Each structure stands twice: as structure tokens, then as C-alpha cells.
């Protein structure tokens, strides 16, 4: 046997042999323990009733640690939030690692620990998982895939196709924090900012919004492509127009300043802890109030309205009172931010 480098991930950690077993037992199961995971069977077996929501997402953010979070927290929150956009209560997640040979065990444990914390906050359990190790250069440190299931409460029907003319557009808080926090750490681009990623699980926020009004028509979390792209998707899916007001959209001064420097438009910068809600006008104030009571919706604001004319179009009234089209994002503003 050659020298064992204890503090780095080796190819053998993914081989299915002793090292793999130890890694799973010591690093993963210990941290994420729950009855379903503890069995270590090849699949998690459980019962659920009602309408289910099921989703999956892969996380390749670079760098894997950024102000306000890391790839582990992101992998939990991203999938939890995708479930929440259908109104579902998120319950169970799978967690699959693709690790580049040479990753420090210490870093991996930090990531697993933040998976644990985020899952705890979101009230979800990691019930199954997998680990693969690939040769140096075949991945960049660590990629994670998660899938999740949740149960949709009775009487809730949420879809991007449901927006109706007259509906109000509510945004849960300031945009652009995640994209700017991640890019501030990039090599060749790094700049000092106190900004933190907004990465957060929004299952609780959505549950409180639905308690205020089960009639919410559509929900969307504006991740890659930012607010602008999500609104365009909603307008196209529902065949409606959306008109927003620039002065109502919360953006932090630090995000504005960074965007000026980098030539970005905050409308296109990614978020990982924000929700857009399309709500019938009579319920808008109730939902807004409920959002503002939750710590992830404190700065929520009604930013616009759904219209019937020119389906698929998003128009913004600028701070000067003129209006302009807000298009889908074209190309890649910032690669690998989630």
C-alpha cells in the first residue's frame, strides 16, 4: 500500500470499497442522519399521499465557497425553492456528489455541514445519496446534484401558466445579491464588497403566503437570468404582458455600484433566495403583509401588474417615467454562478 493522504479525496473514495464506505459513514451519514438515510439501502422507501411535486437541479458554482453560502447550502436551497414554486411543502431530498480528485476532506466536510444546516432550516431530510470521484481536471472541485419531492396542499393550484390580467406582481426582496457576491470572489475580477449571497430556503415563506391566500396564481424563483428572465418566462407561459415599475424594485446600493463597474443590469443578475408571486389583485395586500412578516420577505414589494395587451412582453416604466422593453437575458452574463 502506498502512502495514504488522509486529508484529500482520492479516486479510491469513489470506488465503492473501504474508503468509500468510510467516507459515507463518517462524513455523510453521521452529519445528515435520519431513519430513512440510516438504513443505507440503495433506495429510500417512504409513503406520501396527495399531489406530489418532484424536481432536480445540478450545482456547479465556482468558487464553491462564497460570501453568504457555499455549494452545499445552494444545493439544498435551490431544490427546496424549486419545490416551493409549485406551492409544495418540501419533504425529501437526494444528494449526489461528483468530486474532483484532490479536494480537501476538510472542505468537503464544511460543505456537508452546510447541507445539514440548510436542510434543518428548510425542514427537509436527505434520504438518499451517491458519491463519485473523478480524475483531476474532469470536474472543478465539487459538483452536486439534488432532487426533491414535496406535497402540494389541498386547494392550491400554482403554475407559470396561471397569470391573469389585473394580477399583481410581488417580489420578495432586493435583487442581484447572489450573482454579485459570487462574482466578487472570481479570479481576475475580485473586488471588495460586504455583499452576501441571498441564498435561503423559501419553503416557509411560501407556506405563510399560501396561508394568507391559497389563490396565488404563480410563483417563480428568479435564479439564473435574474428577475428579467423569470418575468419573461411567466409572460410567455401565461400569454400575458407584465408591466413593472423600476422605482419599486428593491436593489441594494452595493449591487448597483458593482453593476455599474462590471457593466451589468441588476435585472439580469442571479438570486438564490427571492420569490416572485403573481397574485389576484384582491389578495395582493394580504400576501404582501404575510411576506413582510417572514425574515426572507421583509423587503417585499408590489413591483408591477399583469396586462392583456401584447402577450409575452415585459415592459418597465423607468425612474424617469419613460418605458422600455425588458427582454430575456441573451447569452451568458456570468458563467457558473449556481
Amino acid at each position, binding site marked *: 500500500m502506498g502512502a495514504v493522504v488522509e486529508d484529500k479525496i482520492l479516486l479510491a473514495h469513489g470506488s465503492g470499497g473501504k474508503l468509500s464506505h468510510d467516507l459515507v459513514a463518517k462524513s455523510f451519514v453521521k452529519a445528515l442522519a435520519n431513519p430513512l438515510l440510516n438504513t443505507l439501502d440503495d433506495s429510500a422507501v417512504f409513503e406520501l399521499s396527495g399531489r406530489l411535486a418532484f424536481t432536480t437541479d445540478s450545482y456547479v458554482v465556482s468558487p464553491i465557497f462564497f460570501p453568504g453560502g457555499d455549494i452545499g447550502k445552494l444545493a439544498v436551497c435551490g431544490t427546496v425553492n424549486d419545490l416551493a414554486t409549485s406551492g409544495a411543502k418540501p419533504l425529501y431530498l437526494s444528494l449526489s456528489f461528483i468530486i474532483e480528485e484532490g479536494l480537501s476532506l476538510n472542505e468537503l466536510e464544511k460543505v456537508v455541514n452546510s447541507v445539514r444546516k440548510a436542510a434543518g432550516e428548510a425542514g427537509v431530510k436527505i434520504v438518499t445519496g451517491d458519491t463519485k470521484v473523478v480524475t483531476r481536471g474532469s470536474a472543478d472541485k465539487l459538483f452536486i446534484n439534488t432532487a426533491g419531492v414535496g406535497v402540494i396542499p389541498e386547494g392550491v393550484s400554482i403554475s407559470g401558466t396561471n397569470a391573469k390580467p389585473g394580477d399583481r406582481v410581488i417580489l420578495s426582496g432586493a435583487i442581484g445579491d447572489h450573482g454579485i457576491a459570487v462574482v466578487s470572489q472570481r479570479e*481576475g475580477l475580485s473586488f471588495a464588497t460586504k455583499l452576501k449571497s441571498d441564498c435561503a430556503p423559501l419553503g416557509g415563506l411560501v407556506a405563510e403566503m399560501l396561508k394568507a391566500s391559497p389563490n396565488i396564481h404563480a410563483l417563480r424563483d428568479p435564479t439564473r437570468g435574474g428577475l428579467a428572465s423569470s418575468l419573461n418566462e411567466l409572460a410567455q407561459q401565461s400569454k400575458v404582458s407584465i408591466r413593472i415599475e423600476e422605482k419599486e424594485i428593491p436593489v441594494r446600493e452595493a449591487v*448597483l455600484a458593482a453593476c455599474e463597474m462590471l457593466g451589468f443590469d441588476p435585472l439580469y443578475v442571479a438570486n438564490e433566495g427571492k420569490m416572485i408571486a403573481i397574485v389576484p389583485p384582491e389578495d395582493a395586500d394580504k400576501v404582501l403583509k404575510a411576506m413582510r412578516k417572514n425574515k426572507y420577505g421583509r423587503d417585499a414589494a408590489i413591483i408591477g401588474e399583469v396586462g392583456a395587451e401584447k402577450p409575452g412582453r415585459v415592459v418597465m416604466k423607468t425612474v424617469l*417615467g419613460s*418605458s422600455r422593453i425588458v427582454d430575456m437575458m*441573451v447569452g451568458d452574463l456570468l458563467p457558473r454562478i449556481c
Partner: protein
Amino acid sequence: MKYITEFRSSELGEGLIARIQQRSKRKVRFMEFCGGHTVTIFRYGIRQLLPPTIEMVSGPGCPICVTANADLDKAIALSQIPGVIVATFGDMLKVPGSRSSLEKAKAEGAEVRTVYSTMDALNIAEANRDKSVVFMGIGFETTAPTIAASILQAEERGIENYYVLSLHKLCPPVIKALLDSGEVELGGLVCPGHVSAIIGSHPWEFIAREYGIPCVISGFEPLDILQCVEMLVEQVEKGESRVEIAYRRGVRPEGNQIALKLMERVFEPSPARWRGMGEIAGSGLKINSKYQRFDAEANFDIKTAPAVEHKGCICGDILRGVKTPADCKLFGKACTPQNPIGPCMVSAEGSCSAYYLYGGGRGG
């Protein structure tokens, strides 16, 4: 003072718009020279807010857009030479040259690196001593000083494998050429803010004096533009023409002497090729004989076939302010930001890109 939100205030904006509408009587055409101004004008829908007496046209102030195909072909040819790494600002990658683009060359195996600053290119050279690193030096008086500084640093740090393909262009000479052509009649010029931060206000004075055209140097926020337009209107209505600085927080009349001296040490004026305008005397900067060993043109055998233009693309006319993107048959159909045919659709500061993204041609 935070320098951003204050310059986007809706109350102050409304006041300026009201004053412009009240004051403007004569029919007049203003050109915003700079692509950065074009973007602000579209992003804030400023054209809609101006009275019908004022027409705004975009000028040739987008460094990527005005780079001629022949020069782009040279950068692509350099990337084909074994052992050469071409370093460039990101936007340049996608611009189609006569037959290829740097992006395509890269996909086919050429070493092309995107950098955010000139000094990154120098660092690449230092880290790859066995290769030659050629930085594609594009831009106006704003980027030229930083590139001059990189050459002086290369000398100081003994980095012998760093070269610059100097395609720098100067703003006042191209405006003169534009005015001399008689193609566009201008009643006022929104002078570039960042260029003027370097060269100051004096180099614009001949335009006010010899051509009788009011000139106001503007910043890049919506209120900057509105204030600049208001000052231009004021001069027009009074029948005056002089150079004024609306962008006082960025520009001093004498400019930035340190930056100007850096440029003087490394560069000398030369003719330059502009897309849509051909060669204009004294409108470029080439590396002087003292620093010739850093000059890519002098040190590599660059072979290119004669440059060809893209059929149907009217970027050249758009850059001269003679036509708008809406006049182009390719705009929004064959030519989109995803699949650009001309440079004005590639660059974030290009007129076509601004029209496309902010719905310039498609109403509200």
C-alpha cells in the same frame, strides 16, 4: 454622496425634462458620440421624453464597433501563429471578422484568452515565458494610457514576450472627419465623458469654434444626459457654441496629465482604419520606435487575405449616424445578439445591441 442613486432621481429628472420641453424651440439634431451614452439613453427611454424638436443620433463611439475587419483579421491571423497567445477584452471575441472570429479560432484550438484588464495580459506573459502574448489593444483615449502603462511595466519587469497590437483610436479626429464629410448635420454634440476625463475639454474646442456646434461633455447616468441636453438646448436657443462640462465630477478642462504623459511616452499619432469611414489621418496611435520591440506589427509576420465586409450589414452607416438599426434588413432577423453579423450587435455599447435589448425599434 453615493454617486449612483442621486443621478437617477425621478424628481430631478422630471424637472430637467420640463425645462428642456419649455426651452427647446428650434428643430435640432444632437449626436451622442459615445456608446455608453447610447446605452443610458435607451435604458432609460430618454428619447421618448424629449420634445419633438430634438432628434438624437448615435455616433461612432464604440471601440469594438469601429474596429475594421482588416484589423480584426490581423488579430485572428496572430492567433494562428504557433506559440502565440492572443489576449483580448471579452466583447471582441464574438465580433465576426472577414472569415472567422476570435471565438471560432479559439474553438478550433487557437490560444485566445479573455482578460478584464491589460495588466492581466501582462501577467499571462510573465507566467508563460515560452510563449508570445499579444494583447489586442483596442479602445480610445480611455484605454490607451493603461496599455501604455503595461508596456512600461513589461520593460521594468523584464517581460520580453509581451506584445501589443495597437489599434487605438482618437476621438476628436473622427468627429472632424464626420463633420467634414457633410453627411450628417449636427446642432450639438454630447461629448464623451470618460475620454474627456483623460484629454480634458480643450481638444473639443475646435468643433465649437470652427463648426459652430455646441459641445457639452456628459456623464453616464440618466440625469447627466438630461442635464447635458438641457445645456445644449440653452446654447442652441441663445445661438451660442462653446464647450461646457456637465460631468464636473469626472472631467477637468486640462484632463489627466499623468495619463496623457504615459501615452506620449509610448505612442505616436498614426493613420487608423475605422469601420464605415475608412482610413482617417492622425486618428490612431502606434507604438513609437523606442518601444518597437513590444509592437506586434513589427515583430510578427502577419498574413491576412484582403478584408471583406458582410453582405447587407450597415454597421458602417450606423456608426456615421447616417442610418439607424431600424433601417437594417438584417436587424432582429438574421442579426441578433445570439447570432451577430455586425459588431454593433455584439458590443454591449453597440447601437444595434442597445436597440435590440431595450426595444428601441419596437416601441413600448
